[in-house]
């Protein structure tokens, strides 16, 4: 894991499933040989990811592999030290502030904790981007917001404050807010964490529904392998700062590669170290006893 400074072994070329080739204009987000470090600690070392229009792309990996950082690179909140992040065909690092904002208006993002504005109601949260970016009359905004809230099953909660919502409800409101401007791309940051089975099922169906009914390109960053396998068209497995495997969830599940197998089966033993680097266990315990 890059977080501990140790690089997981890269798989040989035969082990890596190449993403299906696609015409260039079909590619919405193209991450090319990205290197990124925080305080000298490498997070990415040659990351390549291609997100194609109309598909659900899953980015998986153990905690600390930089999945959220990847979303921040895509939305232009961070810039790569080396390499390119092409969003809608343009390198996000070369865009001006207003151009980055224009690109962000074409994207929606669902945050892990919802990130709802706590001082305004559910209705106002969903209406927030519409009021900020359009001059639509309030009557139209009301219909638009209620439509989106109905889509996530929370039309009845429009007048509640975010503090009155459960975790799952907050995430559904955040999803309604993310889609209210009809984005071309939706980015999901760990959408399944801490959800009860009902909320999880609803979120899963909503992601699939957004993709199929509205044609929204989706990037789902998560480590919930089983959930992702049911909805993803294309998957990338990150480890050691780069993609160690890619393909459909079914291909990844049947892979013999050690890293992929360890991640898909959730084993503590394997190339990805579960234990943080430490001195020898026995000698440390005995040493302390002698002291």
């Amino acid at each position, binding site marked *: 894991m890059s977080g501990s400074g140790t690089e997981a072994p890269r798989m040989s070329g035969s082990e890596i499933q190449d993403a299906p080739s696609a015409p260039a204009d079909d590619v919405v987000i193209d991450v090319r040989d990205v290197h990124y470090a925080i305080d000298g600690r490498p997070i990415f070392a040659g990351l390549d990811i291609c997100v194609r229009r109309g598909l659900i792309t899953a980015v998986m990996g153990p905690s600390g592999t930089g999945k959220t950082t990847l979303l921040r690179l895509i*939305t232009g*909140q961070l810039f790569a030290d080396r390499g390119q992040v092409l969003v809608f065909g343009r390198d996000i690092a070369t865009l001006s502030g207003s151009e980055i*904002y*224009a690109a*962000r*208006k074409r*994207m929606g*993002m669902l*945050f*892990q*904790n919802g*990130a*709802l*504005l*706590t001082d305004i109601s559910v209705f106002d949260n969903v209406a*927030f*981007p519409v009021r*900020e*970016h359009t001059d639509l009359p309030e009557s139209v905004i009301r219909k638009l917001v209620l439509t989106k809230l109905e889509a996530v099953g929370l039309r009845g909660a429009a007048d509640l404050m975010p503090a009155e919502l459960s975790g799952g409800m907050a995430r559904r409101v955040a999803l309604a*807010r993310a889609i209210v401007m009809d984005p071309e791309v939706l980015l999901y940051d760990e959408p399944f964490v801490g959800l009860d089975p009902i909320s999880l099922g609803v979120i899963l169906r909503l992601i699939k529904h957004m993709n199929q009914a509205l044609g929204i390109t989706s990037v789902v960053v998560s480590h919930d392998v089983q959930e992702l396998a049911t909805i993803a068209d294309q998957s990338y497995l990150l480890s050691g700062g780069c993609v160690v495997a890619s393909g459909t969830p079914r291909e990844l599940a049947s892979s013999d590669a050690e890293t992929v197998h360890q991640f898909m089966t959730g084993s503590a033993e394997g190339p990805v170290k579960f234990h943080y680097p430490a001195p020898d266990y026995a000698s440390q315990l005995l040493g302390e006893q002698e002291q």
Partner: protein
Amino acid sequence: MSNGVRRGAALEGVRRFGVTSIFFVRLLAACLPALARPRLIVAQIFNAGGRSLIIIMLSGLFTGMVLGLLGQSVLERFGAETALGTLAALALLKELGPVLTALLFAGRAGTALTSEIGLMRATDQLTAMEVMAVDPMSYVAAPRFLGGIIAMPLLAAIFDVIGLYGAQLIGVQLLGVDRGTFWSQMQSAVGMHDVTEGIVKSLVFGVVVSLIAVNEGYQSEPTAEGVGLATTRTVVAASVLTLLFDYVLTAAVM
């Protein structure tokens, strides 16, 4: 304290000054678009000013009462208790009103601003705004900054008025200073420049306290401990800088 530690502390101080200065410039740039959202600024005037009203009024009343009590007692020794109105008015308008209001504002509204923005940072609300292509500087920081600057002179004015009432309550109604003399002496001795000096001071204090409160919240570590530390820094830095600027402004006027 070793040289290394001293040098490290000095460097950290310089770094903080630099970060705050850059933030101040960005904040000023964000004020223009924020003016297009007057509703947000009015809401922040209420949050910072309206919610500090009770503490300001109570403090003003007690400060004025102390002025009336001490002023009468001291001036009586020189047979000059008729100057009580002038003493109370000048002390409140030029010094106590702006300074005490700023200190109370830093403790009440400044800490609320810092912790609110810090928690918004910790819960990704500011990041969410950025991703929604809404600049949090002009939506969150600038309205709070402008709200603080507008609220401060208004609060100082209320502090002064209530303080004068407190001085009159003790000096005139309790200790027997002549009511006509109290008010007429004040009218003849207090000029518009004294009022202006107080307003300028409270405007400057408004800028200083609001800038520190908003900056500390915006730059705070996104953790419970980080927000707590930022809130403490707001009170300490805003109080010390208020007193420093008070001296500078008083010396400049004299």
